């Protein structure tokens, strides 16, 4: 997969390639959990928590 990513677009940084590789290798369930984990890590998962950052 790394080779395919390299071939696909050299404009991707290493960091971005890793993100893509993780995402492509994951199942839909795993992708969704990663997405949720990311929001939780920033305390943006719930609407009430997001209000603290100015979200409506």
């Amino acid at each position: 997969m790394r080779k395919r990513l390299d071939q696909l677009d050299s404009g991707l940084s290493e960091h971005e390639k890793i993100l893509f590789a993780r995402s492509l290798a994951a199942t839909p369930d795993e992708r969704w959990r990663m997405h949720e984990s990311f929001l939780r890590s920033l305390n943006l998962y719930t609407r009430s928590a997001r209000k603290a950052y100015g979200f409506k």
Partner: protein
Amino acid sequence: MSAAILQGVPATTLDTDIWIDLPETQYVKVLSICSSLGGETLAATVVSLRDDTLVNFLYRIDGLGAFKTETKNAVRLNWFGMKVDVMPLESIIRSKETVGREKDLAHLPLLKKRSNFATGRKKRSNTSLQKGWLIPASAGWTRPRGGGGIRAPIRLFLVIFCPISGDSPEYSFNIRENSRVPGADSFTDTFTDSAAGAGFKPTSQKSAILVAD
């Protein structure tokens, strides 16, 4: 963007858009169903579910064809034990290009790279990913490098087409109301029951189509 996330685009979303195959004039019916499920109506098309999940109901999406047409192109995925028909990336891209808001355009590089990867096309892009955007684009699931904090968070969302009446193929919701609780009742079942009680034609297939707006 939820549909894109499920298809491997490294992005996040803050709310869920559900495209319902009903005339927009009937939005009150949908809101009343959500209200009966314990949701809080925030606007004519926006509801906060019991678990604080934001849902935005849509009745059309710019740049895409009719509901029936789009559902035919759906990609079926297995998501938390449910079969979900997901809008293909090409349709998501088309919609975002049509809408053309800043946040839509910010997603295009990611969506196109993922789409190109799926088709195996080798394409050299001059457009780097949108560095510095917290939630979309390059940030993906990690914090932005350099400790930049929260900058210009963008609302991204998922859309589920939900034909629940008329001659359309019958689908039901597939959003889990609280995916954090293993085994929790899905929003699908609850909504389907409530929809039937509200006079909608009950659905027979537990599937839906997800598209990112």
